[in-house]
């Protein structure tokens, strides 16, 4: 595995259809050892299908796969694994209660005297970790004690332990906090130095420019371009991906006379996770809430919404003090929460678009019942959901469309305070823009929006003011258009004295 030979994998003219619908059309892709090759494209462009063809999950309808110059054919993932190809999926596949070493060798445990050779397993795992330069991880500790970033390392070690020389990574930073992303960058660079070929699938422009040597853009299953990263600009990429110019622009910010009365106010509010919160959000403005993962930004939204209520201080909605101890109360006060985990608690995935859009209305309001047929279609039009119809189950929709359904669900009850947590996580460029426009439009109609985001360009581009959290408390406030550096300085705990 540590041999210096450069591997290369070449895919030529790969096509794949599902039930007559072409998903990949004659795509070429070449991966070389020691090179990070990024694949970008909107949702549905064929990125994950391409990854799955490489991993042996799908057999291409036509096209060649060559590994080190010889043509191969994968009947299943185990064939691909034998050829040295492994995929790190978005969802981790580790068993939390087993040790790192046990996870790495799961199903392939070395045996000695009819027993699992624990010592050898741990020694081999340690060797791999050292090789990667990740000696901070102890092979004997349970995976549940590791951070998300460390778990990702274990996933990668697991792949390397099968002698993988080609790694496919599907949105590897999606689950990581900002400071962990840097660690991943280092890791990817180290893998590259050690001759591993990396296929890097990502939505995030910055990441791709920071890491990759070469970029392939797919659109509607076809290869649009494949060029060295140094020859591309982000404007080029966006144009290639969406087929139109769609830069990093954001809707216009609120003008001073757009601002209305204070809708949401916290006065010294706190609970076990956050403390001493003093903030106001006015009708008509979008207030950004920044902070590193674990700084308490999501905890603020959850507390306002009554999931983990405030235990100290006061909260005012439209000028009147309220104690909100459960979501139902919050909803009835006109507060809405778009959570960061769309699939986990934002949608009922097996229910139809219509049922999801009407869920809040039906679940939280009395007597509102289901008398709203025309309303629903108007609502779905407003958020520009693309679905086969109102009765399609939401799990079949793309991430962007699912997020629009989540927004529709709240718009159905016309909230006055909208809390959004990572509103555009994992959705494609076009949907992102639609969500941004929708949020601004709501603000214009007098909704007070509190937006949490770990994507700084989005946060800065959208917010009329930015509040930054650090370690459970507000570290300071920045005006519209503040620099990323200023936000990060506050978020990491520097410069608190300067601003506050």
């Amino acid at each position, binding site marked *: 595995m540590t041999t210096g030979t450069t591997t290369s994998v070449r895919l030529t003219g790969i096509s794949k259809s599902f039930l007559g619908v072409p998903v990949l059309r004659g795509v070429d892709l070449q991966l070389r050892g020691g090179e990070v090759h990024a694949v970008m494209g909107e949702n549905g462009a064929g990125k994950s299908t391409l990854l799955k063809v490489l991993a042996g999950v799908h057999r291409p309808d036509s096209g060649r796969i060559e590994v080190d110059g010889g043509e191969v054919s994968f009947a299943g993932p185990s064939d691909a694994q034998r050829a040295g190809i492994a995929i790190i999926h978005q969802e981790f596949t580790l068993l939390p209660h087993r040790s790192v070493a046990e996870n790495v060798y799961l199903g392939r445990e070395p045996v000695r005297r009819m027993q699992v050779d624990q010592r050898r397993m741990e020694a081999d795992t340690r060797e791999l970790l050292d090789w990667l330069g990740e000696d901070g991880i102890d092979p004997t500790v349970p995976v549940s004690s590791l951070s998300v970033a460390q778990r990702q390392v274990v996933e990668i070690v697991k792949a390397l332990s099968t002698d993988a020389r080609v790694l496919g990574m599907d949105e590897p930073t999606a689950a990581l906090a900002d400071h962990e992303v840097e660690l991943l960058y280092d890791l990817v660079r180290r893998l590259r130095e050690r001759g591993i070929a990396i296929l890097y699938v990502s939505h995030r422009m910055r990441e791709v420019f920071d890491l990759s040597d070469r970029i392939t853009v797919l659109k509607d299953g076809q290869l649009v371009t494949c060029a060295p990263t140094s020859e591309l600009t982000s404007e080029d990429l966006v144009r290639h991906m969406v087929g139109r110019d769609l830069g990093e622009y954001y809707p216009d910010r609120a003008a001073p006379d757009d601002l209305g009365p204070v809708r949401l106010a916290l006065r010294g509010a706190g609970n076990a996770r956050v403390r001493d919160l003093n903030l106001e959000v006015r009708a008509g403005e979008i207030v950004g809430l920044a902070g590193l993962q674990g700084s308490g930004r999501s905890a603020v939204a959850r507390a306002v919404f009554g999931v983990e209520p405030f235990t100290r201080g006061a909260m005012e909605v439209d000028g009147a003090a309220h104690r909100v101890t459960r979501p*139902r109360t919050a909803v009835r006060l006109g507060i809405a929460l778009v959570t960061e985990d769309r699939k986990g608690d934002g949608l009922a995935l097996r229910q139809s678009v219509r049922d999801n859009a009407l869920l809040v209305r039906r679940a939280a309001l009395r007597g509102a019942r289901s008398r709203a047929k025309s309303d629903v279609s108007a609502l779905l039009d407003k958020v520009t959901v693309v679905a086969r119809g109102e009765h399609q189950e939401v799990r079949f929709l793309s991430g962007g469309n699912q997020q629009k359904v989540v927004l529709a669900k709240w718009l159905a009850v016309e909230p006055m305070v909208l809390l959004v947590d990572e509103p555009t996580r994992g959705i494609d460029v076009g949907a992102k823009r639609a969500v941004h426009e929708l949020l601004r439009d709501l603000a214009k109609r007098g909704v007070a929006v509190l937006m949490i985001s770990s994507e700084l360009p989005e946060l800065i581009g959208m917010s009329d003011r930015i509040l930054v959290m650090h370690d459970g408390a507000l570290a300071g406030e920045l005006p519209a258009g503040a620099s990323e550096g200023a936000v990060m300085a506050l978020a990491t705990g520097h410069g608190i004295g300067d601003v506050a």
Partner: protein
Amino acid sequence: MTWRPRLAEGTAPALLFLLLLLIGLAIVGPAYSEPAGYLALLKRAAPLMILAIGQYLVIVSGGFDLSVGALVTAGVVIAARLIDGNNSATAWVIPLVLGFGLLVGLVNGLITTKLLVPSFIVTLGMLLVLDGATFLWTGGAPRGALSEGFRMFGRGSADVPVLGAVPWSVLILLAILVAAVLFMRGGTGRALVAVGDNEATVRLAGGQVDRLRLLAFTLSGLLAAVAAILLGGFAGVSAQVGNGLEFRAITAVVLGGVLLGGGRGSVVAAAAGALSLEALFTLLNLLGVSGALKSAVQGVIIIVAVAYASLGGGVRQRLRLWPKPRDSVRSAQPASS
């Protein structure tokens, strides 16, 4: 756009299966060449269909109700003992039996939602408690007798204009089925299915998850009491009247394509599943298959139906890889501003 009946996933195969069975009956059994035969089948199937409707409410919201068989037995035995052949007692015993079912369902629901005991365990415990209590109370042989007025609902017929004599049980079944369909179409019914799909989502939408679950268990108990009244009238008093009905009801619901674990399935299909089960037993009977095979057949059905559902899940997984549909009813353009 052409009109297409909108069926919940898994409903169409259930209805098709029922249709095949009914055709099979018409071929094999001479009694099924005219409507009266089917009416008799429906009458026989009515208690199970009502139980299946109750079971559906619990299953679709993510639970199980194993106590309904024991509840049916308890309902019949209590009614026989209290009425003891005295027709005038019927008027207060019927509400009492219904109230008893409601109460048992309420207790099931409260323990499940407030003490956070899995419903499988709660209702299994309730099954044993009811069985034991019934045995203790009757000493093994139920005493007393049901009145004519009580038995009328299970075996009598009402004169309906145009249609002529229609069994009471069929009329009651239809009324319950219509009510159930309307309920499931309404906001509360849809929220109940959503609870079975993703409880956290409903809670964060401001829904009262515990109350919805409680409602499902209570209605299941109430419907089991209705089934007890019909079965008591139809089959008479015995300490075995409800034996195994909970599993038959679950089989029926699963046969109707309802997802175990909740979140998907239609109430009509669940009722159709119960009718299919009854029709299947009748068909096997006509074909000379031993009645002793009944539970074996039921066992095979429940495994095959669940296997089919999970297999279907695999197929759907593959469908999921389809690209975003472009032939949509809505515009794909971002909102213009």
